[in-house]
């Protein structure tokens, strides 16, 4: 009975998260376009957003004129690369490019800022590569129509959304289990059991003080082995812990060293894959345009430089996300035991974002810069 109550409580929290997700997405859509006075190129859209929009449009439109100019004047290629770089930086601040997915993935897992940067660069590079491949094979090799290329782009787009949703679902599953494991002991009703669970939590926090970081192991087994916990609580912390893990090691989530290992990188790359396979439609337009002007190589160079700019923006946001989590960890950590629960909650929330995004994109609910084919 108490267990079902715990589950119900946790489900409520999860549900609330989803509701908030929904509301905040709506709010974001509602606020940005309409909160500010409208008007685009002449900077009437308020603040940073208007400025970003204006700059992006300027750079984007400058690209076609620069490519045309490069036909007769080779030095214009340098201008093109400069513009592409800036465009990449500005453009990535807009929808797409995997900021949300990569950042949420990093927050959902025990990831470092360094890996966040690496993953951002890999995904941006991949996006550029896919754009070059689509135009290289489609337009240059096969000379297909724009419509065909655009349809390809769309198929890839939907595949990407599906992968994001699937990846998000997996994250929610893993993180949800971790969260409920962390939640269960703290919700357990009945005096003595709680007391003992608490005691074991005590033991752990104590053992952490001694430099044994068993972050991932706590709580899950606390009440299952309460008798042990109690017995060992005051005696031999570390040993008590090892005892537990003989019994329950199979049910654990990935440990930090597993994540840092090659398997961890692979998992990170699968996050990158979900967003990396979707090329930027702007890059495709630039590439086709460059090809038509007989300057395909300049278009390819511009695309990769654009990717570099994109990577810088995405990496910056990823680092902010990871640091925010670090800050939350420090704040929550001061209340021992429950700090872990808060962290598991954040991770579950971040996993939920990936899922909500994937499903939202898939259903066309979040129309973040969808490709228009006509």
């Amino acid at each position, binding site marked *: 009975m108490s267990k079902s109550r715990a589950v119900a409580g946790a489900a409520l*929290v999860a549900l*609330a*998260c989803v509701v*908030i*997700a929904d509301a905040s997405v709506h709010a974001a*859509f*509602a606020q940005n*376009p*309409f909160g500010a006075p*409208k*008007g*685009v190129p002449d900077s*009437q859209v308020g603040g940073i*957003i208007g400025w970003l929009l204006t700059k*992006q*449009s300027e750079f*984007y*439109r400058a*690209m*076609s*004129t620069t490519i045309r100019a490069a036909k007769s004047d080779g030095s214009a290629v340098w201008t093109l690369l400069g513009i592409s770089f800036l465009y990449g930086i500005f*453009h990535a601040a*807009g*929808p797409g490019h995997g*900021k*949300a997915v990569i950042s*949420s993935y990093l927050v959902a897992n025990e990831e470092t800022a360094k890996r966040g940067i690496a993953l951002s660069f890999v995904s941006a590079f991949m996006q550029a590569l896919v754009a070059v491949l689509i135009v290289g094979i489609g*337009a240059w090799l096969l*000379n*297909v129509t*724009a419509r*065909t290329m655009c349809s390809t782009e769309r198929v890839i787009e939907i595949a990407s959304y599906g992968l994001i949703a699937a990846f998000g679902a997996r994250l929610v599953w893993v993180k949800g289990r971790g969260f409920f494991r962390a939640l269960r002991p703290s*919700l357990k009703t009945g005096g003595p059991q*709680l*007391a003992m669970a608490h*005691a074991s939590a*005590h033991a752990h926090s104590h053992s952490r003080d001694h430099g044994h970081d068993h972050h991932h192991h706590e709580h899950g087994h606390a009440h299952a082995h309460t008798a042990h916990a109690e017995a060992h609580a005051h005696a031999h912390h570390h040993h008590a812990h090892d005892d537990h893990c003989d019994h329950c090691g199979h049910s654990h989530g990935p440990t930090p060293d597993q994540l840092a290992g090659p398997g961890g990188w692979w998992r990170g790359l699968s996050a990158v894959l979900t967003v990396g396979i979707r090329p930027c*439609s*702007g890059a*495709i*337009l630039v590439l*086709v*345009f460059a090809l*038509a*002007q007989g300057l395909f190589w300049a278009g390819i160079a511009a695309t990769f430089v654009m990717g570099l700019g994109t990577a810088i923006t995405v990496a910056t946001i990823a680092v902010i996300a990871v640091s925010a989590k670090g800050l939350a960890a420090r704040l*929550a950590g001061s209340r021992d035991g*429950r700090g872990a*629960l808060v962290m598991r*909650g*954040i991770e579950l*929330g971040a996993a939920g*974002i990936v899922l909500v995004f994937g499903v939202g994109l898939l259903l066309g*609910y979040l*129309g*973040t810069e*969808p*490709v*228009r*084919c*006509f």
Partner: protein
Amino acid sequence: MTVSMDPGVRRDDRRSFSRAILGLCALLLAFVSGITTAAAHPHVFVAARSELLYATDGTITGVRHAWTFDDMFSTYALQGLATKTPGVYTREDLAPLAQTNVESLQEYKFFTFAKANGKKEHFNEPVDYYLEKTDAGLTLHFTLPFKTPVKTKQLALEVFDPSYFIDFSLEKTDPIKLVGAPASCTMGIQRPSDGGAAKAQTMNEDTFMNGENSNFGAMFANKVTVDCP
């Protein structure tokens, strides 16, 4: 045993927990979605010219558009198109593309939204469509007939892409023409750049009540109103 808590305290704890987690969820989501929706920017630029077609009895029968695409998109759209003379695009050469264009535009409701006396009007399939290649770029001509021609005191016409993938702007000179309209009709044009905060707010209600989700582009809409008293 060292610790034994009374149930009341625990419930409080649990509540503050949930609250903390909810707060963090909210923060995180606001952060991520805020960034993500910050700035879509257009990839296609259209300079639009439109005509409102009137029957002799003063009913409005349809809208005739002429949309000129920017250099980059015009080139992109012509990719892979076979022509009789290389580099020369005749109307016949462009006919299949024009066909594709109007068929595909159906999905986006032709980016054309009309209201007669505040009531939404629907369009039939486009007629008289063709593409024209000039130095300015590729121009798509097509006529959208109203499903039911209307006689109305006020007609409002908006041209925009809700997702703002395409930026529509009205041509600088004579972007809108009333063809065969009663002499008493007056026309007002609002371009995206001459709207104020007040207008943006009325648009907010309007666009969100329509149940369209990603209506980001609405703030860049070109709105034409025709009053025929």
